[in-house]
């Protein structure tokens, strides 16, 4: 194989990062998406807009502000230091936090859409069948929004893998800690090592293609096909 150990290390690190970020996002975002889908509060519009902000700002700009926020004088840095966690930049945990911010809208929106397109009716039906609010959420809302969760997971995962600007800003390019594939690839290109770059990009593409293809086959087998994606 034409990939170096460092390349493989970057691939492992990237997949690890994307998995951790996707899992955390699904857990954290579900209540938020549920609230956004259900609420009639006036806060809905500003909160939705806030969630979409990472889409607006260029990744390097997000990275720059995260670098400041996570720094010794930044509010996030003050918090992590007070908690005895030290500073986040240049650590794997820092990348996780940054990726959470960056991939947030990609995970919130499919789930929110799935909750919204489900409508109130199934929940009303469940209420007339003696299901309380939590019961309704777990037995009706979650399973009916499963396609939304699936697309959210795929988008969140893929987006974290492809993330570059933010990582570049706060990663510090430390092998095995923050040197993910996108950075490694960038380094190859910048160092004019195009062949190495082609191999790494190729392997990464094949790997992710296989992974996503496998996921959607699983989805199809689970009987979710024949229905509208994300509906």
């Amino acid at each position: 194989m034409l990939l170096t150990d460092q390349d493989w290390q970057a691939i492992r690190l990237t997949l690890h990062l994307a998995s951790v970020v996707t899992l955390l996002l699904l857990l954290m975002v579900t209540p938020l998406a549920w609230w956004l889908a259900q609420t009639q509060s006036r806060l809905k519009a500003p909160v939705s807009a806030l969630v979409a902000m990472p889409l607006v700002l260029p990744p390097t700009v997000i990275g720059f502000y995260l670098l400041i926020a996570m720094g010794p004088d930044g509010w996030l840095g003050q918090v992590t230091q007070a908690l005895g966690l030290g500073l986040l930049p240049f650590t794997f945990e820092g990348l996780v936090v940054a990726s959470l911010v960056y991939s947030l809208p990609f995970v919130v929106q499919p789930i929110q859409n799935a909750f919204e397109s489900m409508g109130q009716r199934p929940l009303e039906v469940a209420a007339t069948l003696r299901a309380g609010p939590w019961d309704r959420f777990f037995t009706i809302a979650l399973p009916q929004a499963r396609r939304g969760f699936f697309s959210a997971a795929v988008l969140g995962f893929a987006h974290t893998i492809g993330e570059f600007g933010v990582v570049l800003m706060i990663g510090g390019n430390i092998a095995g800690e923050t040197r993910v594939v996108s950075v490694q690839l960038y380094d190859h290109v910048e160092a004019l090592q195009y062949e190495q770059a082609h191999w790494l990009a190729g392997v990464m593409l094949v790997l992710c293609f296989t992974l996503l293809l496998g996921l959607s086959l699983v989805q199809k087998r689970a009987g979710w096909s024949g229905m509208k994606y994300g509906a």
Partner: protein
Amino acid sequence: MVPESNADQMRIHIRLDFAEDGFSLCLDTRLPLKGVTAIFGRSGSGKTSLLRCLAGLETRCQGSIYLGDQCWQAKGYRLPTHKRPLGYVFQEASLFEHLSVRGNLDYARKRAWQQVTDEEYHHILDLMGIEPLLQRRSYQLSGGERQRVAIARALLIKPSLLLMDEPLAALDQARKQEILPYLEQLKANALLPILYVSHALEEVSRLADTLLVLESGQLKAQGAAGALLASLDCPLPTGEEPGVLLEGSIVERDQQWNLVKIAFDGGELWLSQSESWHSGPMRVRILARDVSLTLAEHQDSSILNRLPGVVRALQKESDGAMILVRLSVGNTALLARISRRSAVHLGLCEGKSVWVQIKSAALVR
């Protein structure tokens, strides 16, 4: 499920005030919780809102609701939907798409107010004729099948009261005919009191014991279904013909002419025989336009049913050409719709004796 003896005395007391987007619902009534009570009115009259308020699905509705002495809603208090002992059948069959038919039924059975025995379970499945559908998913069912599953599901929760919001409205004529017998079975089995919202006179005629007529969010009339439908001023939804409902039973079958004789309080009627006829109480619907009047009995007419009657009231229709005549035949009320000119020509007035010719009558059950 409420024991039979208790259900007899049970009433639901509703005082509601609900306004939204230019529509308002305002009523104060007590309904007996026995048999089928139809909430009848044209679309937009507030029928569905009333049902949703009763179920607690309309959070902005003000007022009070008491089921017997159980408070469902009062000032500053609202029992959440999932704590009200009711079953609800929605207009469009709302099966959970992520569950099979069995999954949908079990969802209710697991949460039932009282334990559902296997015997009861199969009885309900049998009643709705859905046993063969258990393994299917909702998108594999026809509209009628879905609605039957939805009704079974609402029954399996073992509610004290079943609310049905136009359960047939989303179905075509053939599907309606498919489901109506199941609803009649349900009524005949007297499992529980039912509030049945509808704008279709046919359904109401076949099912209702009590009628509650709504118009623009106001209570227009309330009473026994037969008596109310025979009144001249019963407000009917657009497109529905005035007519009456007779209770009777088959007393004779004429195989030669393929006819049956129905006896009711005030006379007898010959109707063409149909295989679905069964013994026991019957309902016959006679539309006002199918009733004509003569002063003498016409033996030479093709019309089979001729009954002596007395004019009780006359009411001009809004177009001025037609007139609605209320008659009594024995103890039964009938309606006839004739031209005003004929009425003048015959000299119709209150107390006048006439012959009532019934061109056709439909057996509704």
